[in-house]
């Protein structure tokens, strides 16, 4: 996983917090009578936002893990509820890669390996573009070698 992902997650979370702050500011300007309470709320939001922006991306970077061996794909994610997923390469049906607009700026990409089960897509997020493309090629190549419909 690319270390740039930390900054991508920070940016994405910051945008979310910015929206909340703007709403609060507008409210503050529109309704001066409740200024004290709104001021306190604004301060609290700032503190929580700062803590979230510092802790969340680094924590997420630490708990997100993935590995691809010749036989299987393995992913790990989650902070409080940890989920580890393993799928044999022979059972992978499709490999998707996608990137959102912000991820584009940071040069990041997500790779998702889908099996025939609705319960088990393996998602690897925050890869840099070359690594992602390489992974997609590698997975596609090994998936094509298997016969049958992987159910």
């Amino acid at each position, binding site marked *: 996983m690319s270390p740039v992902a930390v900054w991508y997650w920070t940016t994405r979370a910051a945008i979310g917090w910015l929206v909340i702050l703007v709403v609060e500011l507008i409210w503050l300007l529109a309704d001066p009578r409740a200024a004290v309470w709104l001021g306190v709320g604004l301060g609290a939001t700032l503190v929580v936002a700062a803590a979230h922006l510092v802790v969340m991306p680094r924590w997420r970077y630490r708990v997100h893990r993935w590995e691809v061996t010749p036989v299987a794909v393995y992913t790990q994610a989650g902070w409080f*509820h*940890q989920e*580890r*997923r*393993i*799928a044999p390469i022979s059972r992978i049906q499709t490999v998707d890669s996608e990137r959102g607009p912000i991820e584009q700026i940071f040069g990041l990409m997500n790779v998702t390996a889908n099996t*025939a089960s*609705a*319960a088990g897509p393996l998602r690897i997020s925050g890869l840099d573009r070359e690594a992602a493309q390489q992974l997609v090629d590698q997975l596609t190549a090994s998936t094509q070698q298997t016969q049958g419909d992987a159910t």
Partner: protein
Amino acid sequence: MASRYYGAEWRRLNARMLILLPVQEVLRSLPLLLGLLVAGSSSGSGPEWSLIGAALAIGAGTLRWFTTTYRITSDQVQVRRGLLRRRTLTVLRDRIRTVDVTAHALHRVLGLARVSIGTGRSDRRDGGGLKLDGLSVQEAAQIRDVLLSKPAADTAAVAVDAGTADVELIRWHPAWIAYGPFTLSGIVTVLVAAGFGYRILSAANLNPTRFGPIHALLHDVGRTSPVLVVLTIVALTVVVTIVFSTVGYVLAFWNFRLTRQASGTLHVSRGLVTTRAVTIDENRLRGIEFSEPLLLRAVGGARCIAIATGLRVGRGAERGGSMLLPPAPRMVAVAVAAAILGDAGPIRTQLIGHGPVARRRRYNRVLLVMVPLLTVLLVAWWLGGLPAWPWQVGLAALAAGLPLAADRFHSLGHAVVAGRLVTRSGSLARRRGVLSADGIIGWNLGQSFFQRRSQLVTLTATTAAGRQAYEVQDVGVAEAVRVAELLRPGLLAAFFEEPRPAPTRETAGQL
């Protein structure tokens, strides 16, 4: 005789559908026609409008016959339909998993049947399949045989196969109707009926309380004690539910028959008014779900559901298509499951329990929700404002929740029997899933914060069949790895840094 070729020319639906399609279209637009009648009656021209609507519906139905054609080539099934927006739906024959032949009452009067072709696309809501609504019964059966026959190397082999007799695994017994009331399927019917009635009343702008007898009834109710009223309503609901459940059971499962056909398929046929025949390719069968809902279990009943790829449990058009045995005596269910699996072990075997922490977690689920809620309700009642009945109901729910938690723990269990994962959980809907190792296409290991602290893990076997995921809840990490290794060696252990010694059967799950 099952041959793989059916002739590749475009065909139309059966001509008798010219009678049925307009009727179906009118029935489908009945709510709209009723709405038109009611809405139009205020302007005094309600009947005219709904007549125009009915004429349109009949026209649309007739048109549908002329615009729908289908063909079955050597490698695909195609349906073309639509007048302005011509659509061609194509299903590759390799991908066909199930062929479902249903005939409702109108179909049966005309000797017709509907063929639903299901594919393995479990991620789509419509299953990615297609329907041929309206073929003669013979044609439908013929198409089913054609589509499900294997691409045989030589046709002679097929001919021999088709000649062998089918083996009947189980046939319906009228005594099974006794299990009908315990299926609770009637509740859904009652709710749907109530909802529909309410919508008609509100659409027609009627107020039932102004209606003489109901008005008198409500007037009387106002004077009797509320306890009596509640008891009467409960008793009425119970009786109505029992009646509807039993009727529903008879309608759905009358004349039920499960056969294993020589071509390697399981064949289910059932139904009183609407008959339904489902054929499941045994190559697609990955296991069996043996389910014992609480009420059914109390009277010694159980049912069986197929875990097959392309048959997603309880979904859309294929809803109920995976049923292998309706609620029946437990002994019968065990025998049927054993006959299908070819081994009674997975159903009969003593499961490995999940240890004291799993038990505590079942109780915590109840206590962590109910105790805070009860406290809030009690405080609110104490400080005034809230009436007493919310906390009384809460207390009753807590009292009911504790035995439920005990039963949920009692249900927990897993085993690996002859290359199959057996896992059981649930109380209100206790299910024992039997999933063969080759049906498992991956593992998910989920650990909540609390599970991590007590070294437990929920192991989920993902699969393309049935419920898509079968869980072994709250087992020790080492036991989870052991189970996974037994079923698919070398997959899970490779990702665990420190291999732990495999526990013996006695200590398994006691972590």
